[in-house]
């Protein structure tokens, strides 16, 4: 191992972290407003992946694919909200979580029946990596990283610079105070699910372009994304993104010592340590006890 190997590992980790960041952001957005960990997040990602794949097949354009993925992800999330989550919204967290697991099952099964289980890849020419000495960087990774950053930036602008974002944050902060201040909760919920769905849909397209699409693809992304969101502090959008990047890089950089089989465990070890030392997450403040 020389320095270039470590830099390559760090680059791989950064890209994996960015890939995890989008579903982690969606998880944290839903958690912030609806107050439950949505286990169907990964399956919204898969829906976005299939839609993006379909749109790319039809149009040949990655931009159209991303828009298609975002639209499908939003549609799936809104449908799940209206049909499954809204009727049980006032029940305990465990009910909502189990509902979300059920929604995930239904989506995965539906995709399996509709498209089969063989992995599919985007039909696009593969580019060779750019080499700087022993360090190699993929042009495709740069564009995907840029796209991810643009999506993250758009969500942050929406959350922190618009009236809608202020309402969303107000509800996340203190639902009762928000309600008495005249914030229309239902409208905010719909907006939040649509945003979370779009983020998932784009994540599906991005990971589909990088890897392959099959009905279980998003499900496999769920646990790392969840760990990232917990490390960053559930409910904190900035924390989710930073947590994902931190987790991705730690996992890859740990491989010279842990080997490849156990690198995933590193994520969970870090999560446990964070929960022990800073239960609210690295980038979250302490929650009020209600």
């Amino acid at each position, binding site marked *: 191992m020389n320095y270039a*190997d470590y830099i*390559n*590992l760090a680059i*791989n*980790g950064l*890209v*994996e972290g960015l*890939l995890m960041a989008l579903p982690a952001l969606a998880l944290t957005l839903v958690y912030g407003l609806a107050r439950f960990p949505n286990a169907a997040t990964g399956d919204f990602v898969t829906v976005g992946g299939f839609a993006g794949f379909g749109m790319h097949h039809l149009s040949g354009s990655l931009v159209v694919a991303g828009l298609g993925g975002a639209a499908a992800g939003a549609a799936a999330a809104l449908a799940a909200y209206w049909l499954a989550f809204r009727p049980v919204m006032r029940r305990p967290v465990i009910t909502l979580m189990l509902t979300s697991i059920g929604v995930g099952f239904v989506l995965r099964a539906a995709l*399996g029946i509709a498209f*089969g*289980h*063989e*992995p*599919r*890849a985007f*039909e696009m020419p*593969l*580019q*060779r*990596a750019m*080499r700087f000495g022993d360090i*190699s960087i*993929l042009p*495709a990774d740069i564009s995907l990283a840029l796209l991810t950053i643009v999506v993250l930036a758009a969500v942050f602008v929406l959350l922190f610079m618009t009236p809608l974002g202020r309402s969303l944050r107000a509800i996340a902060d203190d639902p009762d105070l928000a309600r008495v201040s005249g914030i229309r909760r239902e409208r905010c919920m719909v907006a939040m699910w649509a945003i979370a769905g779009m983020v998932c849909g784009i994540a599906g397209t991005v*990971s589909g372009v*990088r*890897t*392959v699409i*099959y009905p*279980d693809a998003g499900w*496999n*992304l769920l646990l790392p994304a969840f760990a990232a969101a917990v490390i960053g502090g559930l409910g904190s959008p900035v924390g989710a993104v930073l947590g994902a990047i931190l987790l991705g890089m730690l996992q*890859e950089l740990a*491989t010279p010592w842990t*080997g*490849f*089989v156990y*690198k*995933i465990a590193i994520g969970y070890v870090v999560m446990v340590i964070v929960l022990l030392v800073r239960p609210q997450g690295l980038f979250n403040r302490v929650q009020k006890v209600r």
Partner: protein
Amino acid sequence: MKPSRTRNQEKQMKTIHSFVMSAVGLAALCASPAFAQQATFQVGALTPVTGAGAPYGAGMSKAIEIAVAEINAAGGAKGAKLVVSSEDSQTAPQAAVLGAKKLLSVSNVKALIGVWSSGESLAVMPLTNEANVLLMHASGAPALSGPPVNDKKLGFRFQATNGRFGRAFAEIAKREGYTKPATMAFNNASGLGNTEGFATAWKAAGKEVVASVVYEPNRPSYRSELQSVLRAKPDVIVTGSYLADTTIILREWYQSGVNTKWIIPGWAANADLIKALGPEVTEGIISVETVSNEAAPSYKHYAEAAGKAGINVQGNAYAAMAYDQAIILGLAVQAAGPTASGTELAKKVHEIGTAGGTQVYTFAEGKKKLEAGERVSYIGASSALNFDEFNDVTPDFAAWKIEKGQLVRKYIVKL
């Protein structure tokens, strides 16, 4: 006195009547299972109709139906008609266990056939051992061979073990002139079996494996894993992987721009892989898969019937294995009788599946010879069978090369 005698007579009559009735009832109770056992022999088909095995499961089910129809058309096995109950294993151990339990307890099957992946076979075998029922499968995991899993020797494998796949890989690597191989394997019994089988055979010839990586499946990227293997500058990488991770690995390898060759098991390097990655990336990849017993009359006989039934004869080697499972089971029932225990049937399957007897290629032929009191050896459509001490077969392998987006069969490897 009179009335009391009448009462006595009545009592007697009642006693006789109830005795006769219960005797009739008892006889009926005893007779019906005996009758059912003579008339039918229950077979369970536990095939992967959905899940990762779905490309093969439907063909396997059809092949079992073809075989059973042949057996019944020839008058059944020792007078018993074979009746098939089917369950979908969903290529998932949990679902396979549920299906197996149903087949064993509700359908009362005497043999489970058509089981596909190693995970399913490993999960189901304790149940069949417990029930003293045969298990015939097409799984590769070496653990399925000996004790503790198969200590009762009720399990029969119709596919090469992953260890044998590994030996075939080593044979092909040698033949292609490679000197610096590396391995990459999925962290499960099948993946590790392939690459460890390769490494054992390769090192036995006094040669070195330059790097080996074991990875966790279902990752979005395997770039760090690849980087670690490629650092050793191998001239070929031998894999034990499935289709999804192979697609991602090859895509990332091609993008890395490093030159190397690949030897990949046939269930991962197939038409779907070429479709996903295109001809440029896949050019020159060697795909290794067992081949059916193509020169045998049993294969020709099977291929004709299977083709008519819509089975992909060339692309689904597992269907031929499922067909052989049903035929050899029928022959064992013919030899041991439909009421034989699992252990007795297993002994007969082993005997009929090894060399030394008169070679037969169909059930009808075998039945005639068995009735004449001869010892027979069934030469299968999937392989010549020849069960070893662990009830494992050694089929032939074919090396295919991907050339301009087409799988081209190059040569046969016999172990």
